[in-house]
């Protein structure tokens, strides 16, 4: 457990051994790095920023009229994972994603896992992310989560934990692709020296995967579209980027209408049907007739079309129930229940504050724990016990006592570090990893993913909204 605020000597560094020799996956890279002129690298860092800026890889920050488009800082030292490490991770992720889909299918049908007493009924049925509209409906191919971004942290040579299963609409894949593109542009020699597995075919695989799950009502070549909340959404760049790379339409709710039992878009030739919709709009906003009536982002009536088998929605509505933080604590049981095997990847031990015993423990050990809101995301509404002030902890303890069911707690993991480039050279910073997974009739895991890095020394919060940056992530061929 990390208790100090500064750099964390106890953390596992992925690049350097304690004796300052490079770890095996970094040995080729380290040689290259040693031969580099520091000023050139700093200049390259600036160049990378310009590439990102001109490409427009920005995210919107609400309420800032002038500086409304921000860059996520990019660090040019890659995060390198050996082929052996990756194979282990990939097997664990695949097992988990298969379990997630089986779990979703079960809870929207027979709920055998509840009957078996492995998960409390109220956890499902009183959960906002559980959509009664999905009960008894099976999406095309039985696939609920077409695209998953599994958040993984590492604490040692062989210790990996799953931190979160993002099964709704995981974002950030455009950074995975642009980071690689930028690295290849700036340091082509590195890709001659290291055998880095490609991630560039992600858009192609995504399109193939989406098209392969066309609804029964689709005749002919399936027409795919990406649904965005619009140009002011913080992830609009990514939505446009994916549509562009896949060569499909980018649509907004106002472009779509339900006509003759199909979802159609307004084209220059009149209304034309869409078969597969990769939606980047939350469940709540998807269909004002079914969910939030004030939503202007969705398509009135799309849920009826969906249930009639005339459109595929990816990810399926109601998948949020599987990546809920309260459900998360049951993932080991879920994996075992559906796959019949122990989970290959560990869960972070989690205290459910709704349980009195756990609440008591959490309050007594608040200075050691990370406490999160069950429905929170983006690093907001959480307390990092070891780095919080006494006052912050006291305020949080009150919130905890007022609504215990709203919180879970986990030990403060000593996340692994990878160096970033700083003015004086390199310095270790904590990282996490989000690999991207595509599910159709098979599970495909893209070798790489998004590495998020906390740029502040000692910080464990990697979210871009809170001072996090990104790195290119290499999986080596070995």
């Amino acid at each position: 457990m990390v208790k100090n605020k500064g750099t964390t000597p106890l953390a596992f560094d992925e690049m350097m051994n304690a004796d300052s020799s490079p770890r095996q996956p970094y040995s080729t890279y380290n040689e290259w790095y040693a031969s580099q002129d520091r000023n050139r690298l700093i200049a390259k860092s600036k160049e990378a920023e310009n590439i990102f800026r001109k490409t427009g890889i920005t995210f919107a920050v609400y309420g800032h009229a002038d500086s409304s488009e921000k860059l996520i800082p990019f660090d040019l030292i890659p995060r390198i994972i050996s082929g052996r490490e990756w194979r282990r991770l990939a097997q664990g992720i695949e097992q988990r994603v298969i379990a997630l889909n089986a779990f979703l299918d079960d809870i929207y049908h027979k709920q055998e896992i509840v009957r078996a007493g492995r998960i409390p009924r109220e956890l499902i049925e009183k959960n906002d992310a559980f959509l009664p509209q999905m009960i008894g409906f099976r999406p095309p191919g039985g696939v609920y989560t077409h695209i998953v971004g599994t958040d993984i942290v590492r604490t040692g040579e062989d210790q990996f934990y799953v931190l979160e299963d993002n099964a709704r609409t995981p974002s950030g894949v455009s950074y995975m692709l642009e980071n690689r593109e930028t690295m290849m542009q700036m340091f082509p020699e590195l890709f001659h020296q290291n055998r880095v597995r490609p991630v560039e075919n992600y858009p192609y695989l995504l399109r193939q995967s989406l098209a392969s799950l066309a609804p029964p009502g689709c005749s002919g070549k399936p027409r795919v579209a990406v649904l965005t909340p619009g140009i002011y959404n913080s992830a609009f760049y990514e939505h446009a980027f994916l549509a562009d790379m896949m060569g499909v339409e980018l649509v907004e709710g106002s472009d779509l209408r339900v006509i003759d039992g199909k979802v159609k878009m307004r084209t220059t030739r009149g209304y034309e049907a869409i078969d597969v919709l990769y939606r980047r709009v939350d469940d709540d906003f998807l269909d004002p007739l079914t969910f939030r009536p004030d939503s202007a982002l969705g398509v009135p009536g799309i849920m009826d079309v969906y249930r009639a088998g005339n459109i595929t929605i990816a990810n399926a509505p109601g998948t949020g129930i599987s990546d809920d933080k309260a459900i998360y604590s049951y993932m080991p049981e879920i994996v075992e229940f559906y796959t019949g095997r122990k989970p290959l990847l560990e869960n972070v031990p989690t205290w459910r504050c709704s349980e009195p015993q756990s609440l008591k423990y959490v309050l007594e050990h608040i200075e050691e724990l990370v406490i999160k809101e069950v429905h929170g995301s983006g690093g907001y509404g959480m307390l990092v016990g070891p780095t919080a002030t006494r006052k912050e902890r006291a305020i949080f303890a009150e919130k905890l006592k007022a609504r215990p069911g709203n919180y879970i707690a986990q030990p403060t993991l000593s996340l692994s570090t990878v160096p970033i480039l700083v003015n004086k050279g390199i310095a270790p910073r904590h990282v996490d990893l989000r690999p991207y997974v595509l599910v159709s009739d098979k599970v495909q895991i893209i070798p790489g993913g998004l590495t998020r890095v906390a740029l502040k020394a000692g910080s464990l919060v990697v979210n871009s909204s809170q001072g996090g940056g990104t790195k290119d992530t290499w999986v080596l061929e070995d």
Partner: protein
Amino acid sequence: MLGRTANGLYWMFRYIERAENGARLIDAGLRMSLTRSEAAEDDWDGVLQSAGVRELYDEVHETLTSSDAIDFLLRDRANPSSVMSCIEAGRHNARMVRTALTRETWEATNECWIEMKAMLAKKARPADLPEIIGTIKRRAGLIRGAFHGTMLRNEIFNFSRIGTFIERADNTARILDVKYYVLLPAVAAVGSSMDNVQWESILRSVSAHRAYGWVYDAELRPANIADFLISNGRMPRSLAYCYEKIVSNLGYLAREYGATHAAHGTAEQTLAALRTRSINDIMDQGLHEYLEEFISDNNRLGQEISDGYRFYH
């Protein structure tokens, strides 16, 4: 393609064209104010009229000064046709239709916006104006270059080109209309140096002062200037040239869609008239009336295209 995307492309290219023409107008205005010592405000009055923002200017400013006029034309957000407003609107549309553009075209547009935003963050000093105007023209050129070099020749290309030429035809017609009186034979005191400055400024506003000399002769003559900007199919900013392009792009769309709309008839009619009517005939009938009618027909064509291809936003 979405009707919204077609609309976005059309307006993206209208705004970029307008931004570039705005820079040219300011350039011509500056040039004129250099060539004479008094009454420079009258020149800016003409420039504001050409840009179609004379009344809007009065809503924001009490008096007409060259410094305020330049700022209003260059970077005032209260002026939707200022160069900066146009670049912003063009880039906003480009971002919206990002998926229809090549990476090169998008990046050229985005970089134009990034550079101009920094350059026009503060009111420009007179000494910096040539550099600013040069940059706008260069940036617009880079967008055009990326667009021509990389875009597939399909409906996306056609809607973009149509936007460019509807806007350009409108701009050229306005420039002529504001100055039409200096081209009238009855009023013009032929050969006076004042007229020469005015005529040259018309040509400068469309970057055609050198080309004029190649096509006609060195001496500026009102009828030739009007002919050059209205009927000469080789002059890339003339009304005839713009309509050649509009008609051909509409023609590609008609073939691709297997259908024509009211817009096709309107554009062909206008082009036929531009090809057949002589400049003397136009001048005899009244240049001002001719241009007014042209501007209104051009607007109607824009509306017909928008209706025919189901534009919306």
